[in-house]
């Protein structure tokens, strides 16, 4: 039991980074825009978080500032992809390069100093005393609760239970039809892309203010890309995206726990687990249960710029 709790506790922390970034990506991809700039946005958010905290000593402010910076760069990305209709893949890659490079340069003064303040655990009464999952899930900082419970449920409700959500999905599936029925395609795309980018920035701040409480160049270490992959695996749905992030966290944690406990498996195999897992998750469901295919289908207009005047 102790092992399970241990694995789960690390998994929740590690998975949180992916979950928040993946939620942001779900928002963008559901309205038909693929944002490959997550990695760069996370780097910017990570730096903003640490810079704000070193000035104000308030992790909450740091997180909010990171959301803001993510939003700002999200607007820039949306300007290029939604308003100017540039190629989304290329713009996303450019945003990643810009974000990581800018964060590395601007982050020089902050390199090698620990975060002045970090998010402290806030145990939830009663729930935190549950066996096995209690200490892992309910004795964390409030960001964890936000990422695992509040945000996904809110986004799920918005997306699948409201008329606005229906409009949103229509924009991602068939922007021309949505446009014809009076839905403001460009506005919806623009703001959700910016909002999604803002969550990616927040994921970066989560990284430097809760998980690895210090800034260094390369601190994101490719997690942005994994978040993008998770969204595909989760069938572009917020609840499954968070679950997938947690599963991914568990697999990653298994690799470390397995090595630390000296399981008789080669360390190389254990380190491979997350990647093997990614491949298995993406391929298996579709191959094994063909009926599930529609569940994993991407929004029909994904990555296609919408031109009202060109058909």
């Amino acid at each position, binding site marked *: 039991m102790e092992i399970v709790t241990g694995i789960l506790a690390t998994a929740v922390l590690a998975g949180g980074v992916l979950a928040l970034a993946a939620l942001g990506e779900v928002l963008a991809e559901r309205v038909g825009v693929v944002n490959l700039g997550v990695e760069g946005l996370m780097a910017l958010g990570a730096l903003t978080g640490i810079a704000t905290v070193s000035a104000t000593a308030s992790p909450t402010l740091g997180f909010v500032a990171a959301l803001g910076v993510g939003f700002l760069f999200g607007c820039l990305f949306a300007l290029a992809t939604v308003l100017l209709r540039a190629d989304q893949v290329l713009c996303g890659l450019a945003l990643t390069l810009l974000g990581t490079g800018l964060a590395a340069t601007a982050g*020089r003064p902050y390199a090698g100093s*620990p975060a002045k303040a970090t998010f402290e655990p806030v145990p939830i009464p009663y729930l935190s005393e549950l066996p096995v999952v209690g200490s892992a899930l309910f004795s964390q900082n409030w960001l964890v609760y936000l990422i695992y419970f509040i945000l996904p449920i809110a986004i799920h409700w918005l997306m699948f239970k409201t008329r606005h959500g229906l409009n949103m999905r229509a924009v991602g599936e068939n922007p021309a039809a949505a446009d014809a029925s009076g839905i403001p395609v460009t506005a919806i795309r623009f703001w959700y892309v910016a909002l999604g980018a803002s969550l990616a920035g927040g994921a970066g701040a989560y990284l430097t203010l809760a998980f690895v409480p210090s800034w*260094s160049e*390369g601190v994101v270490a490719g997690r942005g890309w994994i978040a993008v992959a998770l969204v595909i695996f989760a069938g572009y749905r917020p609840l499954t995206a968070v679950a997938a992030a947690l599963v991914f966290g568990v697999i990653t944690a298994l690799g*470390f726990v397995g*090595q*630390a406990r*000296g399981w008789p498996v*080669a*360390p190389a195999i254990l380190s491979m687990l997350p990647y093997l897992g990614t491949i298995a998750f993406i391929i298996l469901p579709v191959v094994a249960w063909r009926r599930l295919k529609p569940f994993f289908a991407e929004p029909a207009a994904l990555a296609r710029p919408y031109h009202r005047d060109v058909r």
Partner: protein
Amino acid sequence: MKSALSIDRRRLLGLGTAAGAGLLLPPSLRGAQAASFPAVAEKDAVIAFGHVGPVNDEGWTWSHDQGMKAVQAAFPKAKTLFVESIPYSADATRTFRQFATQKANLIFATSQYGDFYKDVTKRNRGIAFMECNGSSLEENLGWYYFAHWYPTYVIGVAAGLMSKTGKLGYVASFPVTSCYASTNAFLMGARSVKPEATLQVVTINSWFDPQAATQAGVALANNGCDFLFGIMDEAGYLQIAEQRGIKAAMWNTDMRRFGPKAYVSSVVIDLKAYYVDQVAKRLAGTWEPKATILPLGKGVDRDVWGETVPEAVAKQADAVREKMLSGGFNPFAGEIRDNKGKVRVPAGQTMSEMDLYKWDWSIEGVAGLGA
């Protein structure tokens, strides 16, 4: 153990007479006869550094960058060039070739770039090259490293004295010689005072991945390890140790600000004097391609002990360090068994510096690093 260098032995013999080489090395490994590198005026000199990481990593590359700053201070008229974060790929060849076309007189690679580097050294025999953690000598290529196993052993002694569970944890990068020597020396130090101590290694396949190092630290701490050590360029697991109320030792630089209560010491590297000396030799026209392993106290040492290290522990560990410094004490003496129980170093023999540099097996009690 010498065979590890055999790739170059033929070449060395072919080149004939041995020039003066690193004092620490056996005769068969002495450097090739140097092509002549005539003296250069300070104002015309160009010194180049190719780094593996960013200079602000507060670890490995930062330490080497301090060396470059020392060179700049000592030779203010000389021009210095550097490139950061050079990948282990053909991009490295391109970068070092660029240094060559910029008329560099002496080029340092601060990590082992192997054939990517040799592509350039072979085509530019008139330029002096140095490779950190390198493995072969050529008429214009030397290498340098430092005997990190001595301060590591000293820190191991402190770990053995401070650990209550006897379970030590280690965050490693890859199963490479530096990690074997580091893990083995650490456990040997610990076992010299706590014979039942064991070392569990977690490899994270990177020199720099704060997220992975943090998770590895958590996993080790959860498993009962109460002293963490590792070979990372950042402080991820030190912060975990601070949270968990256990101890940790680091590599490269003083990192106590990340976890003042957990911090015990660090294997600190200081290559300032070495780099200045090499540049001075190159300017004077006396540079030769040598293999150098900088000894304890001259390029590598333990850091000032952390604030929570008991005085008795510091004293006992420092006594060992003193013995190494003044009496040439070599703790890497037989009988040493590998982790499959086979005797690798028989009683009465000691491992040479080259053996330690090329260490590629784990001693009894080290688990998780591979062979």
